[in-house]
């Protein structure tokens, strides 16, 4: 290689490496972006405080609850209440039923998603079974609590919020590697 080619070749190789890194950097960037904007409907993984819970009696929002076990997940998993009319700022508590119908102990993790996505920022969960993994022995049933309120700052355009949970079997994925892949965003 002629000497005068070398600086350009080195720069272009560095650019290639940087763009490969950028592809991977998109993963945390996407998570940060979604946390800030609620783009993908992921709710916060931290318990919310009751600070903003000042009930706004003039307004009503319909909250719908959907729950489903993922493919190959044999548990029964459903909300006890399917719909709730709430005033923003009012704290509510509902239960989800989980039933391990298999003959072995299993661990599960529920992953929430809110639709429309931007409303996720205003859906505050003070207590949620989705913050931790659920361990059920063979045949065990459990009522799992969710305590939440809708932030009164919810923009006017949203009158219905749908909260959906998908229940995954944890043992199917190796938790350690799953954590390193996506950092602290692990639910």
């Amino acid at each position, binding site marked *: 290689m002629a000497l005068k080619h070398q600086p350009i070749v080195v720069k*272009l190789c560095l*650019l290639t490496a940087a763009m*490969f890194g950028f592809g991977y950097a998109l993963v945390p960037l*996407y998570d940060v972006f979604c946390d800030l904007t609620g783009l993908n*409907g992921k709710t916060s993984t931290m318990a919310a405080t009751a600070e903003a819970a000042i009930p706004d009696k003039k307004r009503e929002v319909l909250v719908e609850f959907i729950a489903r076990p993922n493919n190959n997940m044999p548990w029964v998993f459903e909300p006890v209440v399917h719909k709730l009319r709430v005033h923003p700022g009012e704290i509510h508590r509902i239960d989800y039923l989980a039933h391990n119908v298999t003959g072995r102990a299993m661990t599960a993790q529920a992953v929430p998603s809110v639709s429309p996505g931007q409303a996720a920022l205003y859906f505050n969960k003070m207590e949620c079974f989705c913050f931790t993994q659920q361990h059920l022995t063979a045949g065990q049933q459990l009522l799992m609590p969710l305590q939440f309120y809708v932030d009164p700052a919810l923009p006017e355009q949203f009158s219905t919020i749908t909260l959906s949970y*998908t229940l995954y079997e944890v043992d199917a*994925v190796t938790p350690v590697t*799953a954590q390193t*892949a996506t950092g602290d965003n692990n639910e």
Partner: protein
Amino acid sequence: MSTVTTDPHAHAEHEHHHGPAKGLKRWLYTTNHKDIGTLYLLFALTMFFIGGAMAMVIRAELFQPGLQIVEPNFFNQMTTVHGLIMVFGAVMPAFTGLANWLIPMMIGAPDMALPRMNNWSFWILPFAFSILLLSLFMEGGGPSFGWTFYAPLSTTYSNDSTALFVFSVHIMGISSIMGAINVIVTIMNLRAPGMTYMKMPLFVWTWFITAYLLIAVMPVLAGAVTMVLTDKYFGTSFFDAAGGGDPVLFQHIFWFFGHPEVYIMILPAFGIISAIVPTFARKPLFGYASMVYATASIALLSFLVWAHHMFTTGMPVFAELFFMYCTMLIAVPTGVKVFNWVATMWRGAMTFEVPMMFALAFIVLFTIGGFSGLMLAITPADFQYHDTYFVVAHFHYVLVTGAIFSIMAAAYYWLPKWTGHMYDETLGQWHFWCSLISVNVLFFPMHFVGLAGMPRRIPDYALQFADFNALISIGGFAFGLSQLLFVALVVKCIKGGKKATAQVWEGAEGLEWTIASPAPYHSFTTPPEIK
């Protein structure tokens, strides 16, 4: 002499003493840009026919409603591998082949700047495509998740051929990146004295910008396939919601690569058309500088529009509007180009040899593809068009009557320079008219069935689409067969024909037309002086 490095020059001298090697070794060990260009072009032609054969399988199955010829899983493999072969095996190597042949001759360089890397970047390609094609014979078949390999189709629901798919895409990416580095270094360092950037032919300019696009996005594709591989085999959860990932993230990463990729496949075509139209209109190109700036703006904008492929994923309205407006903005520089070509022809002394016919067809039909692209860019309308044959019609107009037609035009235009013989004009006109008619019979009705709701990538369809699909299939078979005329013509042209002059075309201008036809094995060993 001053701008030519001593090394390639000395290398050229060395080759002079021994001459090109004989037989297979010449092609295996060659570092000559013309040999490597030829290899790329022949490889692309081979892949064009392999990918085309898969398209024939698809059209044969879709000739009638119901399942008659192939299994749905095999049908999916055909749509997937057809797309991969045509994008990475036919269009991109054909453009790289043209770049190899033409860029050194157009800028007065003796060869590409990095000839050994050039050899390597070609010779890893046959391995990449052998891996991909052989994966079709695995148990459970080859990749069947579409060329876009969306997760979780390519992670949770794919078979083990995915690993082979990933490795072959890695190799294709390495090849493209090496080719791009070579093009950039050649253009920056080996221009003849006096060849300033704004004197470079537009084909060189468009390739210069394309090479930067390749370096910017091929590594992102490599990252995306690597993530698919680790999600599938090593327990990571980039795209798996159970582990905290997000399948929509895949689409963002893929289309961050994918949208610039479509410009990688069309910018060199703009360069080709900008070379051919002035020659046959016998007028200099109208608006050279605006062409350069338009190309650069298209390249920059291409990084801001990726999510227009994802309007139906549930993006917030703000993001949909942003991507809609950015996408529509691309129509402006593209329109500048089309108007410049038309203005170049305005009051020109035009003749209609085969390269010009393909170039004219390109301008009209690529513009139709651009317009259907604008329709798809309209977010609310896209919800109707998404994943229908309307999309298939759109991207085949821009890739077949766009990219492929420009490659055909380039082949006809420079064949006399490459072989030293004029091609058979009658046979060429036959090839052109058969292709033009059949390609429109093939792709135009797809707009209608798409608007009526026929989904893409499905081996069966509702009965009301039967007549149009039979017509489309007939167009498809006719287009496929028409390309055999091209092979016959190229073989005939290599074997013999009327001697071509150095200038070949009356109106042709540029350094490549100052050297003899066929171009000698070593050209511009002493750089020409540009006024």
